[in-house]
């Protein structure tokens, strides 16, 4: 299982937790499992999310590997100027 930190305003859609545990060994599997286990997070995932894996922000890469002990943080999808 991978421990994923979610941001504050998503807590209400994840039983009030800061962290959720999901299964998966890459970006896509982790996101898919989040959508499956926490359907309340789906609207946000559809709007766009990034994943910070061990401090590096990934916006899209589905097949970036994620280990059980990786630090994984769900973040909004970033776009800028």
């Amino acid at each position, binding site marked *: 299982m991978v421990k994923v930190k979610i941001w*504050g305003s998503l807590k*209400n859609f994840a039983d009030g937790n800061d962290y959720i545990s999901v299964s998966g060994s890459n970006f896509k599997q982790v996101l898919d499992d989040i959508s499956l286990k926490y359907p309340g997070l789906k609207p946000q995932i559809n709007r766009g999310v990034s994943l910070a894996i*061990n*401090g590096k922000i990934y916006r899209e890469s589905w097949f970036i590997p994620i280990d059980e002990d990786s630090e994984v943080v769900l973040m909004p999808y970033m*776009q800028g*100027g």
Partner: protein
Amino acid sequence: MDQITPKPVKQFKVIGTRPLRPDGIEKVTGKAIYGADLSAPNMLFGLMLRINEPHALIESIDISIAEKLPGVKSIITFKDFIKINPDNKYNETLENCIANEKVLYDGHAVAAVAAINLNIAKKALKSINVKFKKLPFVINIEDAMNKNAPLVAKGKKNENIPDGFSDNVVQYCSFGHGNLEQGFNESDKVIKRTFKTPSVHQGYIEPHACLASMSDDGKADLWCCTQGHYNVRSICSNIFKIDNSQLKVTASEIGGGFGGKTTVFIEPIALALSQKSGRPVKIVMSREEVFKATGPTVSSLVDVKIGMKKNGKISAAKAIIRYEGGAFPNETYELGAQSAFAAYDLKFVKTEAYNVLTNRPAQAAYRAPGAPQSIYAVESVIDELCQYFNHDPLYVRILNAADKGTKSSYGPTFEDIGLKATLEAAKVHSHYTTPLKDNQGRGVACGFWFNFGGNTCVSLNINFDGTVGIVEGNPDIGGSRSSISQIAAEELGISLEKVKTIIADTNSLGHNDVTDGSRVTFSVGLATIKAAKAAKKELCKRAAKLWGIDEEAVIWKDGYAYPAGANAGIQDPLSLEDIAKVSSQTGGPIAGHYEVNAEGAGVSFGVHLVDVETDLETGHTKILRYTVFQDAGKAIHPSYVEGQMQGGSVQGIGWALNEEYIYNNEGKLQNPGFLDYRIPVSSDLPMIDPVILEIPNPGHPYGVRGVGETSIVPPLAAINNAVSRATNIRFTELPLSPPRVLKAILNNL
């Protein structure tokens, strides 16, 4: 102009030097072709009809007289688009270009005309009869959030909005960690303040311009000034329901963007006018249109509460951020919430952010979008706490600075970052200890930006004469062609004069994300290195053929192929030129290419020092001295890195001292021109001293971080702090224009 490189890093030959830019001569002789400079045979001139009402229901648009005028060739309204693609996923973008059912802000377009000359087009606009019903409107954040506020748009609200607000509050987020209450209880002093910043415009000197030609079968050519022509293609091909391959978009030279040219405003309109008339159509915006209907950035209302211990340690921090970005939802509020406390290592921290709709033009990204506003508030409160405890403001920032291993306020743990080194560099700089006189104040502030990667393609072609052509797809907004050529020369081991980089049109190279997020030198640079590596591999293969040895027995070093070791035999090294000259005989042209969605961009921090003098009789503030310290990771072309640091700082100075969108009671913009919307001019400023630090980004082979955006973040608070110290009055609202400062001085007497 100093450059500080703390530890010895890889030695470079071309990178870090300051060659002349390759597009320079065209640009100093007037030859460079920008958006408005191109014309086509049989071209028509397009103009847009804009309604000067903040909010109105469109009842009818009668074009019957206008379309009969001699010389008028096509007229379009939103209805012409509905027929094309009802499922268009860029409908909000289109509705910002041309109003659908409602006029949503002062200056919103409702129709467009193409005619054989501008005079006829102007006449046609006057004879279009628009009937509308005025609606109640809302301009300011507080008013728009209020339960009883006029509703800007229905059905835009996300599922997670807390109760108690109007439906203009459409987006909400929060970030942070730890038990805030515990943190505040541990504080020796808590300061809570509310800050306001106005909408400001990116202020690029080149108005939006495009030239479009589209035939009935959906084949189209579009020329425009944009930060991302592939994005223009995505949006327009979706709106017109045509294949990507059939719409060729060419980016002109671009006269500034700063985030404001990352979307479309006139391009779909010109395409539609062209398709309807069967002739090419050029649209060039006026400056008034640029101010009224493009940009600006969000305005903000931010509460910040920070607790500090006597020793200067921050014990808890909270911000409530409210951004207003006009009549359409946007993501800027999230970036504001994430960046607010990014500079600090905090155990207890929380940010909440709301995005609010108003009857203003849709915000567009502006250099580090969202970060200057929230960080302005945070850095101002930290300065006030420093004053309260009589602590040195740099000491406090160093004490609390985020570092490698810090769990950032927005979630991830930082890798190598340059904040502490940047703060230390500021502390020992002569600027920091120069004595000040009466009515002068010194301000300090930190700034932060994430920096992006993204989709990037580079093709590197080795010509038969040993020169190298690079094809990339990101409009060059501040000298990136030079940096990319330098990277290729470095990697191939050849001289810079042998390399030329061009920006491809959308049909000549795969998709490239917008030139945004300070991503170009990082991402395109990364792809250039990989493309060069691919080319070197092929060069080695050819050398192996020429020598009759195994490919693996050849290595590339400093521009030459060498046998890898004694076993490979003794051969005179072959230069890139030697191999290129016979490439036709050894298998054909040699090239390398690389396509990637680059990830791993490194965050960047900056620290600004500013000395100001405030005239107590007029409220006018003069910038006396300005020094910028910023971590560039690695400066490829230091002059253009300095240029980014200086330019961003001066945009921030304008934001802090003068720039603001001013609306009257009727919701109409009062200052849509450079006379009344005052951006900094040369006589307002001193030299801006840049100090580049180089703390390599572990995610890039040369250590590059983005440099374009961080520099606009600190000036707002740095100047606010300097003026507050000069006058002994704490300011909480920008701009610190003479009337505002004078009023505060008079109230304080």
